[in-house]
């Protein structure tokens, strides 16, 4: 049956070539579209992780649920035990303690509400590799009272590197505490909103300003994002009671909504392509099977069942689908490689100031899915015509050949 099917699809070469082209085009579109979306989401994911979130964050239990409104209630007074637990987890490449409070910034000309993040400069430099410095430099271990501000905030207060600013925070007891800082750099993260209200100061200075010795979170960077789930489970098993671990995905609202949007768009694209392939193949299969109705009549007159006729018709189209899908995958991957080598300049995503260069990733799962969809669409296109063909009485089928 396979030999017969193969020979049959080679009979009408022009029609077969057009059908193959339709399938291949659809599959290649899926490879390119899927690879493009995957690259955008991958870049967004890594930028999200490497600008602020890290892969994991450890909190005192309840802080996440409180929404960060009562930071003093959830201070980790002694993070040593947590840091030891983090260091024991395989795949960890950096960890950094942070303390975050709301406060005010003033430079004499104006005053704005801000989010103050006390950070450990060296590990944060590794975790925040996606944060770009627009002016000045990053904080270093020697900057006891240095400060970095977000791009939007610098713009709002007309701040320049070297300027002095004053931070005002409320301590746990409710007293107002203030410290002067020298601006060492202006940064741009992935989030425009964050950049309009965030400042980063050394952890020691933040603790002095808040009159505490604790931290709010320990941020963990892993060697690979794929390790996240395993590392989280491992870390949870090692942590003392009273702490919780959140993954980047639980913290990345912007990424999650963007990913959902892209995935929905790609889903619609996928359906459109599927329908196009299905209709193209159905048209060709319909014509072919209609013309060959007498042959199927002969087969059945010679003792083949209507099921055999159905199987042959579907097998022929499945073979077409397999060949077309293979061509589509190869062509799609080749185009993806070429386009990626050139790069696709992309505008900044929503709520961001930075554009980026997208590529088209060649992802095995997308190649496999596009290949399978090419075959499935082809088989789907053949089912009704094949069923109709198999139901034509033998005599009627033979008569059509006269």
């Amino acid at each position, binding site marked *: 049956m396979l030999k*017969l099917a193969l*020979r*049959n699809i*080679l*009979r009408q070469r022009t029609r077969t070539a057009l059908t193959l082209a339709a399938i291949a085009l659809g599959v290649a579109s899926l490879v390119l579209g899927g690879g493009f979306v995957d690259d955008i989401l991958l870049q967004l994911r890594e930028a999200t992780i490497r600008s602020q979130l890290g892969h994991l964050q450890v909190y005192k239990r309840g802080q996440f649920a409180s929404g960060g409104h009562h930071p003093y209630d959830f201070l980790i007074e002694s993070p040593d035990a947590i840091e030891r637990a983090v260091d024991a987890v395989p795949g960890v490449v950096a960890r950094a303690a942070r303390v975050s409070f709301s406060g005010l910034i003033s430079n004499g000309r104006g005053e704005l509400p801000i989010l103050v993040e006390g950070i450990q400069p060296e590990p944060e430099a590794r975790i925040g590799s996606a944060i770009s410095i627009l002016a000045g430099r990053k904080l270093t271990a020697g900057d006891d009272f240095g400060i970095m501000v977000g791009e939007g905030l610098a713009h709002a207060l007309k701040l320049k590197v070297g300027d002095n600013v004053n931070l005002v925070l409320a301590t746990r007891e409710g007293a107002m505490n203030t410290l002067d800082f020298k601006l060492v750099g202006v940064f741009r993260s992935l989030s425009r909103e964050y950049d309009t209200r965030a400042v980063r100061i050394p952890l020691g200075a933040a603790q002095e300003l808040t009159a505490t010795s604790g931290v709010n979170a320990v941020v963990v960077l892993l060697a690979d994002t794929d390790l996240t789930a395993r590392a989280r489970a491992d870390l949870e098993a090692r942590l003392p009671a009273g702490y919780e671990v959140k993954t980047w995905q639980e913290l990345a609202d912007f990424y999650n909504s963007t990913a959902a949007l892209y995935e929905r768009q790609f889903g619609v694209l996928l359906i459109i392509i599927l329908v196009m392939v299905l209709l193209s193949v159905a048209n060709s299969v319909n014509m072919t099977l209609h013309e060959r109705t*007498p*042959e199927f*009549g*002969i*087969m*059945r*007159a*010679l*003792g*083949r*069942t*209507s*099921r055999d006729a159905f199987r042959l018709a579907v097998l022929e189209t499945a073979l077409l689908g397999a060949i077309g899908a293979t061509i589509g995958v190869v062509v799609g991957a080749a185009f993806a490689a070429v386009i990626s080598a050139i790069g696709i300049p992309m505008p900044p995503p929503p709520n961001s100031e930075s554009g980026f260069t997208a590529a088209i990733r060649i992802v095995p799962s997308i190649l496999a899915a596009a290949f399978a969809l090419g075959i499935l669409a082809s088989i789907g296109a053949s089912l009704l015509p094949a069923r109709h063909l198999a139901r034509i*009485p*033998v*005599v009627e089928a*033979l008569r059509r*050949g*006269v």
Partner: protein
Amino acid sequence: MTSSDQHSAANIVHSLPGREAAIGGRPRSPKKVLVRVENVSKQYRLDAQLVPALNSVNLNIEQGVFMAIAGPSGSGKSTLLNLIGCIDTPTSGRIFIGDHDVSSKSPDQLASLRARTIGFIFQTFNLLPVLSAEENVEYPLLQFKELSIAERRKRVQRYLEVVGLSTFARHRPNQLSGGQRQRVAIARALVVHPKIILADEPTANLDHKTGGRILRLMRRINRQTRTTFVFSTHDQRVIDMAIRRVDLEDGEIIRLGVRAGKEWVYAMERMNDSSLDGEEDDS
């Protein structure tokens, strides 16, 4: 009995003499009935109308005969052939092939019956165009799982030799002449060792000379293998070569004849079961 039934030639009993009786010899004992058609009618639906194609036909076909079903276009000969070949079903009545009542069989059982019992030869040859001559002959054998590949190929070669096409085994149908294609069709019909071969206007698409050769080939096979051949035809040459004839008109049998030398002896009496003696004519 309806008026139509009363006028049905199928219900006229014809005393069919055996060949010996027809030429004054001693009748032989009756041969095994291979196909029994019992009061079969067939109607086709054309829009809202029912068009009768066959009307209460009764017929016995005995093993080894070389029979022509003759009649003008639209007389019902192809319909009768299709019903005997189990590729169509009667509106009423029953058809037996051997001991099997085919009207009670499922489509799959009929397919199996066709595969092992019946060979078809079509007016338009109906070879599978993507297969070579030998592959076309082999095609019906692929369902015979009991045959090894070697046995299958041996049988294919044998029947290609029988029809004189061994040297054209690798040729595809479009590389063969009309006569050669029909020979391939004959080999394909024979290769399953059928009990009966049904040929629908086998010479209609062939020139006079080639048609004659094909007929002589089939007659030779009939004599040598005792395979039953039934033709539908309006070609006088086919009728002349037959040893039994069934004449149809307007879906009814009007004459049943047996050859007596160069003449036909007709049974012309009303009957409920028109039986043909399967005598061999060696003329």
